């Protein structure tokens, strides 16, 4: 029923957890993935907020009219210049806001749509479920990029580029996957007794969906949100790289557009400072969100943690205890290396 075998499984034990989570969420999460991902995401968010203000130059201004060759990084231009002598660092800082804003708007709106469609379909069942599921499937199979190119082709004639509007349009093609996952989760929750108990108590349908089912879906919602933000970054970058969205509107995608049109990667001396920073920025922002996503998965599904995927010392402890368990602290006979050499086993010896 679900398209992603991993997601519903990971979210399965969720209903038993959130209560415990209250205390746990106050601490810094132990998972290294969450820490790194969170750190990177916070960094990018700060860049998005203050980037345009701390940019050393106007990103669009040609700082010199004498040279037509991109300059490599220098003290004056930390990330070098473009062909028309614009400061790459300023473009990167200025373009970050648009890129991140668009992706966050796309992620938020798509998640809201996914909740509205998925939870309603899963809870209501019957013809409404059939209808909403069909709609989600249509959006799922529709090729998103060509559709968006057509939509933005119309929009760019009438309106100047607006980050919120762009995010809204992208979200239209990004909600269906999350809706399917949430429908599947809702279907499994709907049969739980606490939903029946709420009905017996006289709760209305919208309240059951919003206050009984949705809180149990928080991990799925968070995962879905991060997933669609990644989708938003990729799609927005692709669209502006293709020049579908006004190339005068600075984003990491338009930087790549200009670098590509100047053939920065095909010159004799590859002008890496021009195309690498925006490309890396997109990649690292996506990585941050993906790390957070993995972290949430582990947070929600203790089985992944038990498997030692976080690499926390937890993995080493049973070994040490097993070594101590040897009779009298002597190396156990089932450890051939220690027995043959006569040397004390690395840990068994200490225990004696």
């Amino acid at each position: 029923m679900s398209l992603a075998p991993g997601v519903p499984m990971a979210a399965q034990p969720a209903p038993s957890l959130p209560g415990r989570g209250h205390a746990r969420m106050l601490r810094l999460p132990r998972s290294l993935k969450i820490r790194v991902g969170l750190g990177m995401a916070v960094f990018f968010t700060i860049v998005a907020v203050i980037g345009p203000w701390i940019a050393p130059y106007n990103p669009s201004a040609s700082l010199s009219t004498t040279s037509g060759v991109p300059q490599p990084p220098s003290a004056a231009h930390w990330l070098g210049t473009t062909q028309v002598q614009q400061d790459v660092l300023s473009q990167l800082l200025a373009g970050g806001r648009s890129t991140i804003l668009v992706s966050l708007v796309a992620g938020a709106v798509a998640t809201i749509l996914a909740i509205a469609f998925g939870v309603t379909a899963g809870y209501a069942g019957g013809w409404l479920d059939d209808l909403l599921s069909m709609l989600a499937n249509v959006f799922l199979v529709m090729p998103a990029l060509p559709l968006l190119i057509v939509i933005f082709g119309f929009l760019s004639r009438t309106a100047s580029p607006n980050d919120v509007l762009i995010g809204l349009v992208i979200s239209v093609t990004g909600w269906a996957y999350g809706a399917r996952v949430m429908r599947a989760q809702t279907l499994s929750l709907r049969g739980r007794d606490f939903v029946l108990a709420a009905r017996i108590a006289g709760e209305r349908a919208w309240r059951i969906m919003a206050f009984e089912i949705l809180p149990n879906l928080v991990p799925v919602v968070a995962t879905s949100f991060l997933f669609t933000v990644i989708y938003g970054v990729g799609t927005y970058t692709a669209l502006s790289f293709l020049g579908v969205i006004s190339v005068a509107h600075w984003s990491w995608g338009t930087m790549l557009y200009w670098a590509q049109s100047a053939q920065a990667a095909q010159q004799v001396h590859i002008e890496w400072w021009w195309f690498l920073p925006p490309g890396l920025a997109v990649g690292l922002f996506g990585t941050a969100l993906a790390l957070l996503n993995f972290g949430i998965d582990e947070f929600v599904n203790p089985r992944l943690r038990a498997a030692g995927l976080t690499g926390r010392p937890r993995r080493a402890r049973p070994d040490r205890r097993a070594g101590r368990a040897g009779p009298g602290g002597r190396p156990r006979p089932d450890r051939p290396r220690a027995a043959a050499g006569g040397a004390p086993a690395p840990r068994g010896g200490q225990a004696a």
Partner: protein
Amino acid sequence: MSGPAAGGTAARGGAPGGDVPLLQARGLTRNFRVRASRARPGGGLVRAVQDVTVALPRAAIIAIVGESGSGKSTLVKLLARLIRPTSGTLLLDGAPLPRSSRGRREFARQVQLVLQDPFSSLNPVHDVRYHLARPLRIHRLARTRPELDRAADGLLERVALTPPGQFRGKYPHELSGGQRQRVAIARALAVRPRVLLADEPVSMLDVSVRLGVLNLLADLRERDGLAIVYVTHDIASARYLADAICVMYAGRMVESGPAAVVTDAPAHPYTQLLIGAAPDPDRPAAARLTPGDAATGPAIPAGGCPFRPRCPHAMRVCADAVPALADLGGGHASACWLHADGLSAAERSALGRGERAAGLAPGRRAARPRREAR
């Protein structure tokens, strides 16, 4: 827990009198249409509950006993109006129920249901306070926060979760199974219902805490005059708690009567099987009837008495028609051709191999002292 002594409730025997029963079901039937599957090619109709008539007097406890798949949970859902009957009527105070959503709410305020599994009937994301406050808010019994807190504390005290302050802020996972079931009962009591439907309220609990919850139910009836429908597969606990017992098999009521009579002198072969299945060190193993249940035993036949493949007294007439509930006197009734009035003794012996006296109500069983309930 200061429940009444074991003898106190059960020894009362027959249902206490009252002119109009509080909750009454007449000929309730519910069929489920099922999709075609390998087990049922071409789909089919599951007759979950068939023609069940039952009356719950005020402040009485009746037990509905039956094995898995006997339709007792469907019956209790019908009684709670969670599902609509295929046919039959439900009466509250002798009056039919309005279909409007307002009528439903009012019914829900009077008749509350406690679900079987306390591990899934409480939402893990909400604390005890929330679970108790919601019904109060929905039915506008309390509005302000101090009012709600006071009401919640009162409810927790009623189900013996004391001190209430210690439990109010707890989440379900912080409570034991017995404590959770008490919270579930408190939630049902929040709207001050007159009828409590308890669907196997102790089957998911540790044996050690079952008695406490059963005594709580007995106590609620004793103190607050709550009428209780207690659904169970454990006939011993039914005898311990209930005034009257109704035994169900394959969606039909096969025997009903005062708890002591039904358990001491069971008239229907199925009831005898149920009682025989309850472990009893005093009884030699040979006296038990062949076990098996709806899932592992022979399939339930389409026509005639549904119990006949497992019945040691099966006769030819059993395959022809379903026996009606026949009155055996003293409120005791049984749906078995062995007790049917329509057949004379000669006819009976001509039709089948069973003799009425053979396996029924042996004196030893009737004379045996009441067993202690588990």
